[in-house]
């Protein structure tokens, strides 16, 4: 909403010496957010009134000479049709900014032919004033003669644009229906700066009528007033000052009656509508439509009214969408003289629903949706009549009919001073509290520690209802920034043990900070193509409305598809990818109550997935497996065991493991199948993935490292390379060697090799055996005996033989 400070100045004496920026700042801190402060004269800088002294053709050009001061004339070459000598026009001097088409250009003095052109002729178009002068030729010289301005006067002054407009964020006004007009803002400024607020005009009401208003259905509204009036011939244009104010806040001007209704709305926040009295029959009714029929609106759109649609109807049917927009059939035109003004209070939900249903949002519907009080109709009718008499003295007001079903009841609130002090954090002076609340329109009755308040009607439609609302009123006007910060008392609670740390955090930090993987965050939705790449389809997913793309309306049932997509994108500019993600996955299937509650929901789990790329499949698989072991060890997590079992379809048959927590399968580790790699467009020789459900993983209650006495005697180690059949696993080899001799303390895998000299179906495995004796120093003979024992056991139990 735009607010003109000149307009606000009608109702409050704005303090001298306070800049518009400071006022905007004060409003922002205490009332509503001001987004911008616009000096409306700035756009017209350098444009002054000039009296046309001569108009001559020189060659193909028109030269206009204007007097712009007592001893100053300006000669201009122009193509603009120019009024007669003696008329007053707008002259744009060098430096002024004009609009040429859609491009802004700066006027400069220049040589045209052999003469100097020292300015440009202002038009409604190039001065951006078409809204203010809708009837003037947008490309013709702006004729100001009717205003009799003094030559040299800045144009902004002549047309009232020496003003500042505050642009207020409408979002910050949603709970304040009283602020949707200049008067409401004036009231706030009067309280903020502690200056008096001038009353709105009241008028002697015209005679009462019973022919203007018919039925008012309580479901539609609480009040409907109608005023009949008549304009005199020849006065159908609002005066410049009024049109100028509307133009400054960005409103187009139409005709006298329509401009007056707008002016009233932007002053008191109450929408009204003027009907052509000769185009409606019988009294106006505020009702829900009884039958379906088309209704053509003022803006030319036709909406299909259905039974229940809130309308204003006359004897023949709907003439307006109640609270939203008038109908074209009853609209006033240039020739309209006899009119009926409707001023009503519609229910906010009713207007909101109609506005949504037909997709028509207007300044009127925006205000009704915020819940207006019925009393505001009085302010609107009085202001309308007052202005009508002022700007069109020849007009006459005939009659008024007013039907009020349920007037807005001012809300009573009782509040204790102690409560205010506790919530605000400091005890404010009771005089200050009283003064603030009275300024805002409350009635205040102080009785010891107790304040008995009545909110004004304009704050009683839901905005103010209980003591917490009074806290806000008092504190905001005092200024939140002026409140002292009170330190909070700290309550001691049991310290957090290792076990209460978050598994997610342990996993993330261990993977990223100790194991060298990069965390990524991907969307919770997943593309159909990525799902297909891992062998999943839409039947496996929870789906949602409003998806960013039609093929991304599935919530991810696994983290792997998005990791694969991320890897494919990154592999375009890097050779290897090692990433992980921790996040929620969503599972199709029957809903179950969430937690210990009662909402039926899809199952949601927190998972960790990692993806590694590389040239060597075996090495990659081993790194992925090692990562998981390191993760649980360094992260102090509960054990994750490896085993056979059902795995996911992305895990290749040649390299995969099922992951377990105790007997429960919790994930998969493996190389991606060739099919998955192809479908995902992954340009890497090998890709390893692992995914774990973290719900089954816990943080150990304490550290699980164990102490073994440090050996006093030196140990020894020897390597063995043995040839063994492919069906013998490393685990079998290690176990055999480990138990072959009491001296064997440890067996480590070094390497494996397949080559031309190794028989088919076999491989060469190198292992390192560490030996240690508790009894005495190891002798060469003892080590040799141990080596023979290991080889013997390997041969007997695994068929392995020392590599020749």
């Amino acid at each position, binding site marked *: 909403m735009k607010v003109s400070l000149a307009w606000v100045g009608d109702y409050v004496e704005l303090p001298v010496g306070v800049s518009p920026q400071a006022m905007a700042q004060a409003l922002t*801190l*205490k009332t*509503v*957010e001001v*987004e*911008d402060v616009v000096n409306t004269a700035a756009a017209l800088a350098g444009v002054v009134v000039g009296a046309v002294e001569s108009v001559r053709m020189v060659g193909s050009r028109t030269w206009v000479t204007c007097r712009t001061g007592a001893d100053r004339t300006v000669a201009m070459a122009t193509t603009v049709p120019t009024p007669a000598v003696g008329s007053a026009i707008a002259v744009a001097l060098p430096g002024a900014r004009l609009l040429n088409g859609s491009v802004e250009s700066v006027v400069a003095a220049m040589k045209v032919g052999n003469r100097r052109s020292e300015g440009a002729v202002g038009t409604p178009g190039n001065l951006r004033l078409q809204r203010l002068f809708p009837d003037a030729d947008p490309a013709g010289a702006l004729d100001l003669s009717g205003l009799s301005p003094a030559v040299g006067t800045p144009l902004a002054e002549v047309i009232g644009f020496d003003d500042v407009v505050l642009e207020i964020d409408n979002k*910050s006004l949603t709970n*304040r229906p009283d602020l949707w007009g200049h008067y409401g803002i004036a009231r706030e400024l009067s309280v903020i700066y502690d200056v008096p607020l001038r009353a709105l005009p009241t008028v002697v009401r015209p005679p009462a009528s019973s022919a203007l208003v018919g039925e008012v259905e309580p479901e539609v509204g609480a009040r409907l007033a109608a005023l009949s009036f008549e304009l005199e011939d020849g006065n159908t244009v609002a005066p410049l000052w009024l049109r100028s104010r509307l133009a400054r806040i960005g409103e187009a001007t139409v005709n006298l009656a329509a401009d007056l209704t707008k002016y009233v709305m932007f002053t008191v926040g109450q929408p009204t509508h003027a009907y052509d009295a000769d185009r409606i029959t019988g009294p106006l009714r505020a009702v829900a439509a009884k039958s379906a029929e088309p209704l053509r609106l003022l803006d030319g759109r036709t909406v299909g009214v259905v039974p229940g649609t809130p309308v204003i109807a006359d004897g023949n049917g709907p003439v307006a969408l109640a609270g939203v927009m008038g109908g074209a059939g009853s609209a006033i035109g240039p020739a309209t003289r006899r009119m009926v003004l409707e001023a009503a209070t519609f229910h906010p*939900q009713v207007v*909101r629903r109609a506005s949504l249903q037909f997709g028509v949002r207007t300044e009127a519907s925006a205000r009704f949706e915020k819940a207006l009080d019925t009393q505001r109709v009085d302010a609107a009718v009085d202001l309308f009549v007052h202005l009508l008499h002022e700007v069109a003295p020849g007009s006459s007001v005939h009659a008024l009919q007013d039907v009020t079903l349920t007037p807005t009841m001012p809300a009573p609130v009782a509040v204790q001073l102690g409560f205010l002090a506790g*919530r*605000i*954090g*400091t005890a404010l002076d009771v005089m200050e509290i009283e003064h603030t609340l009275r300024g805002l329109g409350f009635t205040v009755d102080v009785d010891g520690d107790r304040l008995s308040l009545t909110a004004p009607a304009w704050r009683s439609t839901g905005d103010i209802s209980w003591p*917490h609302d009074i*806290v*806000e009123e008092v504190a*905001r006007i005092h200024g*939140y*920034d002026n*409140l*002292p*910060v*009170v*330190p*909070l008392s700290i*309550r*001691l609670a049991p310290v957090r043990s290792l076990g209460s740390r*978050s598994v997610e*955090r342990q996993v*993330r*930090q261990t*993977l*990223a*900070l100790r194991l*060298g993987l*990069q*965390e*990524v*965050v991907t969307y*919770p939705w997943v593309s159909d193509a990525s799902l297909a790449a891992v062998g999943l389809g839409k039947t496996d997913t929870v*789906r*949602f*409305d*409003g*998806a*960013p793309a039609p093929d991304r309306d599935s919530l991810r049932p696994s983290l792997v598809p*998005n990791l694969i997509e991320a890897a494919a994108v990154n592999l375009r*500019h890097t050779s290897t990818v*090692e*990433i992980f993600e921790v996040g*929620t996955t969503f599972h199709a299937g029957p809903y179950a109550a*969430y*937690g*210990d509650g*009662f*909402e*039926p*929901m*899809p199952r949601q789990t927190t998972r960790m997935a990692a993806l590694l790329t590389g040239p060597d499949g075996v090495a990659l698989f081993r790194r992925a497996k090692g990562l998981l072991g390191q993760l649980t060890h360094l992260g102090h997590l509960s054990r994750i065991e490896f085993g056979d079992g059902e795995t996911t379809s992305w895990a290749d048959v040649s390299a995969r493991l099922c992951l377990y927590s105790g007997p429960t399968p919790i994930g998969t580790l493996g190389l991606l199948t060739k099919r998955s790699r192809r479908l995902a467009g992954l340009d890497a020789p090998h890709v390893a993935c692992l995914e774990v459900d973290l719900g089954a993983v816990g943080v150990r209650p304490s550290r699980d490292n164990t102490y073994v006495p440090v050996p006093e005697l030196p140990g020894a180690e020897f390597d063995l390379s043995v040839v063994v059949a492919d069906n013998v696993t490393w685990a079998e080899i290690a176990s055999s060697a480990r138990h072959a001799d009491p001296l064997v303390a440890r067996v480590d895998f070094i390497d494996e090799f397949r080559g031309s000299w190794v028989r088919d179906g076999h491989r060469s495995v190198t292992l390192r055996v560490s030996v240690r004796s508790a009894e005495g120093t190891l002798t060469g003979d003892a080590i040799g005996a141990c080596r023979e024992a290991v080889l013997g056991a390997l041969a007997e139990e695994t068929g392995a033989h020392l590599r020749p």
Partner: protein
Amino acid sequence: MIDTSDLLLRELAELRTAAMGRVASAVAVSDVDTIRRDMIGKAGRVLAIRRAIGGLDAMARRVVGAAVNELHRELSQALDRREEELLDLEPALPHPVDVTLPGTGPRAGGLHPTVQLMYDLNDAFAALNFEVYSGPEISSELYEFDYMNFPPDHPARESMDTFWLNDSVARHGAERLCLRPHLTGASVRYMQRHRPPLRFVYPGRVYRNESTDARHERAFFQYEVLIIDRDVPLTAGKFLVSTILDTVFGRPVRTRMRTGFFPFVEPGFEIDMECQVCDGTGCRTCHGVGWLEVMPGGSPHPNVLRAGGLDPNEWTGFYVNVGLDRLVMMRYGIDDVRLMHSADLRFLGQFR
């Protein structure tokens, strides 16, 4: 006739001259080792003389013995000294290392910058005794709107703002499910399961049905803090906000509280921070006003407290909610929020 002892003494003198000469001309530690072996080693010439004095008389034995010991001591010292001199001259590497070669270290990974900040804040609030909590990402209209005091016809309930599950059409309350549009619904879940006073944080990702550009995302992280106690003054919010901003920027940041409106708070606030680009003097980032809107907050609305099972006449509180991605962007000067979900390693790798 020349006395044997004289001969031995003369031999010792010659040996000394020769040995000292060799020591002086040694050019490597290995030379020193050789001289040591030749002279004072077990088979060395000095010890050979010592063995030869066995046949002398006691007097001569004492004289020659003393001379042998003296030479042994003198040679030892000279050898040690020369060895140290040579060690000082000899570099560890035959060729000096190119010290501009990059250092090596373990493979570098990293956390997502938003997650990093989330954990930084968790640590800061843990020090103030706040619990960390998280609610479900799929939640219900009951928790996200009804309990949050949103009027039944509030626009945020429409699909234009919220992602509803596609089997939720025509359902209501606990049965109408959505991707959570904010974190605040989780606060009621926590209130319902814990006894006040409460202080907890509940970071997480939320979802809005919006078109995306450099400043808007459909999925973004928020960080929310709630404190519930018997008398929580409005100014408690300032304290919570300072905790957040000090953690993010590592220094105190000026803030201001102004009035704001959200259905779930009464009163509600917008909390602005001084623009860190221009230090509050006004620039493009802050649209010339010197302040940036960073977080809404306020006291839980009595209806919200009631939904959480708390008596609004007994308990008060303060919420602070901050857009985590937005703070990360300010922390690092990131100009496009869409990078956060891009999984682009060229971006993420900058925050290790």
